[in-house]
């Protein structure tokens, strides 16, 4: 039962965040690049003010899978690295924490671009 409730929260919160994104698209006609940037910055802000961990505790994938989670790891990485390395951490922390996601996205995109042909858009 508890697991079912967990999954329900994941679905509801994840879905709501995506619906907010769609609402932004409908009302302002902004491009997908701007949507992604906006949500990354929201994540950075939430983590920087220390709210993100509380949300993440019960929302789990509902907030970690949307790109908000990517922004939060950027900020978390930078803060953590400043604590251990001082000023240098401000420059190394953010990208270190998100390196896995960026490297995977670039690597797999390159691989599949070599394998697949483009599908003509109808």
């Amino acid at each position, binding site marked *: 039962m508890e697991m079912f409730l967990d999954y329900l929260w*994941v679905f509801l919160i994840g879905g709501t965040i*995506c619906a907010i*994104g769609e609402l932004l698209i409908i009302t302002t006609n902004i491009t997908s690049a701007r949507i*992604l940037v906006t949500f990354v910055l929201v994540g950075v802000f939430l983590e920087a003010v220390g709210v993100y961990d509380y949300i993440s505790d019960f929302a789990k994938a509902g907030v970690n899978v949307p790109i908000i989670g*990517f922004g939060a790891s*950027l900020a978390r990485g930078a*803060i953590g690295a400043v*604590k251990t390395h001082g000023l240098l951490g401000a420059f190394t922390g953010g990208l270190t924490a998100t390196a896995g996601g960026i490297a995977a*996205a670039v690597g797999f995109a390159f691989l599949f671009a070599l394998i697949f042909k483009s599908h003509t*858009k109808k």
Partner: protein
Amino acid sequence: MEDKKRNEQYNSYVKAKIPKTKPWPSLFNSFLVGGIICLIGQGINDLLMLAFPAMSQQSAWAYTLIILIFIASFLTGIGVYDQIGKFAGGGSIVPITGFSNSIASPSIEFKSEGIIYGICVKMFTIAGPVIVFGTISSIVVGLIYWIISLF
């Protein structure tokens, strides 16, 4: 004066040509698809924690995101993700799979222009701003924390 009139005419023309999306169905579709993508992520994460109990929560999340990115790039390659995108709108853009799609989609589309100028250059047309703003904001946050920690 002339310019202003022409601009107004042009703007109304653009407004008439923009495809109209019905707000309620599209909001519901994004909610549904976005929610399902997050559910899949939670499922992968729980399975990883079950299979490798020694793994820390943080690395389990990193693996989860990498697996989701792999799936999204593959679906982009076979042309399925664009179909999902047509149906879901924001539901397919906001999750990390949308970030992955935004890198994979142009690199596959511009493959014909060569590996360097096609795949590698066009790869970052949408993801570039995301990485730039993300990096800059993380530097700013880090600097603020460094300054606070001085006192």
